[in-house]
């Protein structure tokens, strides 16, 4: 948290201290008017008073006053807010290995379901596009703010078949991105790049242009084969982690469909939110004021001023 007018903290805190001092004084005066009881130990044992109530009231009063003092200093907090110029491409691997059924119903279907979760979680106004890639990469859905349309477009993602051109997919996404704005690429793949552009070089280029790549590795380490072939369905995790690191993104691994959906849903929020220092003076002041008003109402209700 930072302050626009930190110097205002001092007088505000002094004012808060003065208010507390006045409250203490009022309590001392009240003490003089207190009901005299013959034996305070017996009274305490007999009443078994709920001591937390006055303590909570006192703490809430102090908190309310401090919040007002903080609000006067113009506090700013770095908070995640939806980006207005957010762009995100989901690159879905449709190579032959995505037919593998170690993730039910198969990796390709699980990837589509996860992409749907991503789109649903993306903030309103975020442009979302879909790229499918196997031996080559193609745009299934250009960038759009119509998330319902993007979800419908997932039906157009082709069935798994062919090689894995990760670098081509990244290049196509980069070419389709606007030159400025809050941009990101989400790469869902289960394999090793085996054709087309070098993805490592693309990741470096994307990182240099502030376009992070969030890579998601899908599949188990069961050693299963790609259906119809004798090739093992392996994941080059080291490479995927390297792409993410080079570009300023992050890597996640999903062994199952549910986990994949969770990862993509979280990425949906990550790519469509940005941390911004916000002026929180008004909400802090309102919260502080509301706390004091609530305490006063509670005290009136509990008979404090009778």
């Amino acid at each position, binding site marked *: 948290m930072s302050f626009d007018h930190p110097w205002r903290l001092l007088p505000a805190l002094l004012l808060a201290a003065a208010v507390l001092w006045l409250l203490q004084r009022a309590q001392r005066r009240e003490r003089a008017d*207190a*009901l005299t*009881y*013959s034996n305070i130990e*017996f009274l305490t044992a007999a009443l078994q*008073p709920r001591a937390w109530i*006055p303590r909570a009231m006192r703490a809430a009063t102090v908190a309310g006053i401090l919040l007002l003092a903080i609000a006067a200093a113009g506090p700013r907090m770095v908070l995640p807010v939806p980006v207005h110029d957010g762009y995100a491409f989901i690159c879905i691997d449709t190579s032959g290995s995505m037919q593998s059924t170690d993730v039910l119903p198969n990796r390709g279907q699980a990837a589509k379901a996860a992409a749907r979760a991503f789109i649903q979680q993306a903030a309103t106004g975020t442009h979302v596009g879909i790229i499918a890639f196997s031996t080559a990469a193609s745009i299934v859905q250009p960038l759009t703010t119509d998330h319902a349309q993007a979800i419908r477009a997932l039906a157009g993602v082709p069935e798994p078949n062919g090689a894995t051109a990760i670098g081509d997919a990244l290049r196509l996404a980069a070419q389709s991105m606007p030159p400025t704005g809050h941009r990101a690429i989400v790469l869902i793949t289960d394999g090793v790049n085996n054709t087309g552009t070098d993805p490592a070089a693309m990741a470096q280029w994307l990182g240099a242009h502030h376009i992070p790549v969030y890579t998601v590795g899908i599949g188990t380490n069961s050693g299963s084969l790609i259906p119809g072939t004798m090739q093992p369905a392996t994941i080059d995790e080291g490479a995927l982690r390297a792409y993410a690191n080079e570009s300023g993104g992050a890597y996640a691994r999903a062994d199952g469909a549910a986990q994949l959906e969770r990862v993509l849903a979280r990425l949906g929020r990550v790519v469509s939110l940005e941390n911004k220092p916000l002026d929180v003076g008004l909400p802090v002041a309102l919260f502080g004021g509301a706390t004091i008003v609530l305490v006063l109402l509670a005290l009136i209700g509990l008979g404090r001023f009778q």
Partner: protein
Amino acid sequence: MTLREALLRGRRRPRAWGSGSPTTYRGDGYEFVELRSYVPGDDVRRIDWAATARAGALQTRIVLEDVALTLAAIVDDSGSMQVGRRRRLIDAAEDALALWLESALSDDRVIRVGPDVVVPRQGLRGRHAARVARAPLDVAFDLRSCLETAQAALPRGSALLAISDWHDAEGPRITRLLAELGRRFDCTALIARDPWYDDFPVRGFATFRGAQGGRLVAYVGARERARYLHAVREREARIVRALDEARWRVGVMHESDGAAALAGAFGIPHLGRERAG
């Protein structure tokens, strides 16, 4: 009926014999009751010769026996007795103490018992005795110490009045002490009832100041109020039970009238005052 008569009538211990203070029992004394015909066995010194001459037959004077009482008092004058709604509890205690001491006649001993002192007031009686015996003892009050002092210092058969709110008067040690006192003396206890016994005047947040120090800020809701009323009644019932079991007369003293509480302890609705002199 006077307090003295009530004391003598209700005596539980053997009397200390003396002179000049008639009881309601017929015996060897000076207080004339009646003349009656002589019956064999009457003390010949009690034959009234003038009456015998008038009646032509032996007449015996019947007199009341003489007893000297030792009237001892323990009065709690601590901070907890300084509270009250319209009147302090200590004022009511002084009413009771005055009535107690006024019942002393010329040969009776009046004793004020403090925590570690016994103040004899022999020869004083009536309001003057009360005033002297009511003088502050300049010692912090402690009920148990007072009872222990009374146990050690009072002659057997003394009439002991203890007026206190009986806080801190629970536990096996004090129970044994009360029982021992009940066996040795003619004991009467007045329990100073808390001014807020029936009506706790606080709702919501309240600040309490202890009469003997301490402070409590508490929220008093219906639950707390009910707990308090139950606890205060339970405490009084426990004390009454303990005193009953120790064979003490027990009265509950309100701030409004200590003398009535003393009368109540003796089970009589109206106490008469002793004649001065």
